[in-house]
């Protein structure tokens, strides 16, 4: 075991982690621990764009953006945070441009903007062009630009280090962050990083679904690490299902395709979104479009022999426009489906995409241990966190924005904290839990296989807690997850070595997914209403009286060692906007 000491430690090197690192490195001795090489992070998969009311191509302002964000989130958004997001959006796009990001340009040479779902002029009047983009690889360009600037700033990376545990020390009865424990993939060695401040920027948790746009490595490690140490997770029942994933594979086809004029059609060729969202049509918010697609499928208007998908039609768009604006996604259709999007519509289905919930933070990125108490020294930003700017449903292009705005804020806040705070003592045997976990898995002779349990989990989640949920389906999921968690205790790995043991890490990642799936299902069961990404067929309406509040889920361990989940609730911060019915 090795012990390291840094002022600030950042867990994750995606957009949020690297944006934080650029700030933190300037202000404090910073280490970035990442399980992937930074440029492999899933921010690179983002396609469509990043929202900011630059008003480069038409009238726009941050207040309209705030409103759209609040409405898009079905009024579960903390409005103070949404306002910060929309206001700071403008500088955060300009900062990226100054760092070198090659945005697409208007004929005047300014940053070009395009339409995206849920973004409107003047509180829902008509779609507005607010998304700043670089073809359909905006996330790739953000990730590359941030990495380039990390190289420039001399950011210190520990690549292929997996953070597996959060260290907490109580000082005068208050939980403080003491550091993290990491596993080095290349050698199997365990490292303890003592730090005054720790920032989680470890991304999403989509891999508990089968059809998902998320990478294999998005297994919610950060959420799980803090949750196991008794800290809450907020709004985990809210997961976004993006309308246009490649049929069966889940690979994303950006909403930018509809922003450019693409149309969804059922088997009769009908533009069905006109029925469900007369104004915004194909550009209604994602939860609305995903439900509409499944309604078409359920009512027998799906395409293909099994009627299990619909079409994204780009054939009426000029090939030059597709080549210039959507080169990557048209290539995905060619590579993975053998389909030519110039002439043929693309089969799509909703795909599990984005975790609205996560580690609760305030607007400075400080992590909360209950509704109000800050954990000194602990920060989170990006998809792992819940500020909450996305509420019950995130608007497209608001996440690339979130990672930049709140990545930057967390980086500054953490570094300023570590400049004035001292180290808190490490707990005794800081690596004990990780060592035990690793040794148990490596030595286990159990008969259960990781891949089998993971597949059963994913199929269960797809079937029971996806776009449509009921008491019955969620209960089925809760029971199944409990069974899988039992079986997981008996899991073993074949690779017993120390070097690049990805077999072992997949087992650990599965443990995280199981814990988080359980939190999601239990939180969903208790929310007896429909709001944003959480749609209950047995409670189809939003219930502001009882449920306009955030879920806070805590792990409890009884005296006999039995684990359970305790749910609590936190009020929503409301400033300008009263909840209204959500129509597009």
């Amino acid at each position: 075991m090795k012990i390291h000491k840094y002022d600030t430690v950042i867990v994750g090197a995606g957009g949020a982690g690297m944006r934080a690192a650029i700030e933190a490195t300037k202000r404090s001795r910073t280490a970035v621990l990442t399980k992937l090489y930074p440029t492999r992070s899933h921010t690179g998969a983002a396609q469509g764009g990043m929202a900011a009311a630059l008003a480069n191509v038409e009238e726009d302002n941050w207040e309209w953006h705030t409103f759209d964000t609040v409405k898009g989130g079905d009024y579960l958004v903390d409005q103070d945070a949404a306002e910060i997001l929309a206001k700071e959006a403008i500088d955060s796009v300009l900062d990226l441009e100054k760092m070198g990001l090659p945005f697409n340009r208007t004929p005047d040479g300014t940053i070009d903007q395009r339409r995206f779902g849920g973004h409107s002029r003047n509180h829902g009047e008509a779609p507005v062009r607010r998304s700043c983009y670089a073809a359909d690889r905006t996330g790739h360009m953000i990730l590359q630009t941030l990495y380039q600037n990390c190289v420039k700033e001399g950011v210190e990376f520990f690549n292929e280090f997996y953070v597996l545990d959060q260290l907490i020390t109580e000082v005068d009865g208050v939980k403080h962050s003491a550091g993290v424990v990491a596993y080095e993939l290349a050698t199997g060695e365990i490292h303890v990083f003592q730090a005054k401040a720790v920032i989680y920027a470890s991304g999403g948790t989509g891999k508990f679904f089968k059809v998902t746009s998320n990478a294999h490595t998005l297994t919610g490690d950060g959420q799980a690490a803090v949750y196991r140490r008794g800290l809450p997770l907020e709004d985990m029942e809210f997961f976004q299902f993006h309308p246009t994933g490649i049929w069966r594979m889940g690979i994303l086809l950006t909403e930018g395709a509809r922003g450019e004029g693409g149309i969804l059609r059922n088997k009769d060729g009908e533009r069905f979104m006109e029925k469900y969202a007369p104004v915004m049509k194909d550009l209604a918010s994602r939860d609305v479009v995903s439900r509409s697609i499944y309604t078409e499928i359920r009512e027998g208007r799906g395409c293909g022999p099994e009627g299990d998908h619909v079409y994204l039609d780009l054939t009426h768009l000029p090939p030059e426009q597709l080549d210039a604006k959507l080169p990557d996604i048209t290539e995905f259709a060619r590579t993975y489906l053998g389909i030519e999007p110039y002439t043929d519509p693309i089969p799509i289905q909703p795909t599990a995409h984005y975790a609205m919930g996560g580690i609760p933070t305030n607007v400075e990125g400080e992590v909360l241990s209950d509704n109000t108490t800050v954990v000194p020294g602990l920060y989170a930003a990006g998809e792992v966190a819940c500020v909450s700017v996305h509420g019950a449903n995130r608007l497209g292009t608001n996440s690339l924005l979130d990672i930049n705005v709140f990545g930057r804020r967390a980086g500054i806040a953490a570094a300023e904290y570590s400049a004035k705070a001292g180290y808190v003592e490490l707990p005794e045997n800081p690596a004990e839990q990780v060592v035990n976990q690793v040794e148990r898995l490596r030595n286990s002779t159990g008969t259960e296989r990781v891949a089998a349990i993971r597949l059963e989990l994913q199929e269960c989640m797809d079937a029971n807690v996806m776009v449509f949920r009921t008491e019955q389906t969620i209960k089925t999921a809760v029971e199944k997850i409990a069974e899988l968690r039992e079986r997981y205790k008996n899991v073993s790995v074949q690779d017993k070595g120390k070097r690049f043991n990805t077999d072992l890490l997949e087992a650990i990642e599965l443990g995280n997914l199981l814990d988080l799936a359980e939190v999601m299902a239990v939180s969903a069961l208790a929310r007896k209403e429909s709001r944003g990404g959480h749609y209950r067929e047995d409670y189809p309406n939003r219930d502001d009286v009882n449920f306009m509040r955030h879920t806070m889920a805590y792990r409890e361990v009884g005296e006999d060692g039995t684990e359970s989940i305790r749910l609590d609730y936190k009020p929503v911060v409301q400033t300008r906007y009263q909840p209204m019915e959500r129509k597009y």
Partner: protein
Amino acid sequence: MATPTLDKADAAGAPEPGFADSPYITVTFRIRRFNPEVSAESVWEDFQLQIDPKERVLDALHKIKWDQDGTLTFRRSCAHGICGSDAMRINGKNRLACKTLIKDLNPAKPITVEAIKGLTVMKDLVVDMDPFFQAYRDVMPFLITKDTNEPTRERLQSAEDRERFDDTTKCILCAACTSSCPVFWNDGQYFGPAAIVNAHRFIFDSRDEAGEQRLEILNDKDGVWRCRTTFNCTDACPRGIEVTKAIQEVKRALITRRI
């Protein structure tokens, strides 16, 4: 060795539900294994599996790892050609495992898979990427401007100027090009095509003002002049970047000293 046969997998072959109509075939993967914890030598190992030929090589590697041999080791993340994790030599050519469909590989013969060349193999298909990223860092891969007053708004750039370096912004740093280059195999000191591609991305960006410095770096004995225009890199690039053309443009800029 079994010849692949077209057959509908029965229950034991366990096609995934919903895929029951797909024709599963039996394919042999011949993978070069290496684990210094076990042996100092690498060995070829054959794995047979049933798989839909429309699936990716990455899916096959996963099936092998998950169902047959958990010790098989490779990197991967996004599974759709965006993150650059899984460049490997498949049937002797550098490709991304997640962007290569089995049907495009003549699955009637064993499909060979091995680590990319020129970088030290750490285990199975995993290589040491540090020298690769070092060469990248050496070309100063970040925008450098000399203006003392930061503009308040964005810097302007015409659509044509933006187009000038569009191709080289697509790079995902997968190393498929560099590790397909015979010059790099013989001399690991050579910067390699990927680093030159990333230098190109800045040299030809109208906003950047350090083109001269980067050109000087590439003028080095281990720089662009080592390139012998074999086009392996362009063939290997999964992002369709015209790598050789980018290198040629850098050479031309060095000769004319005009960007």
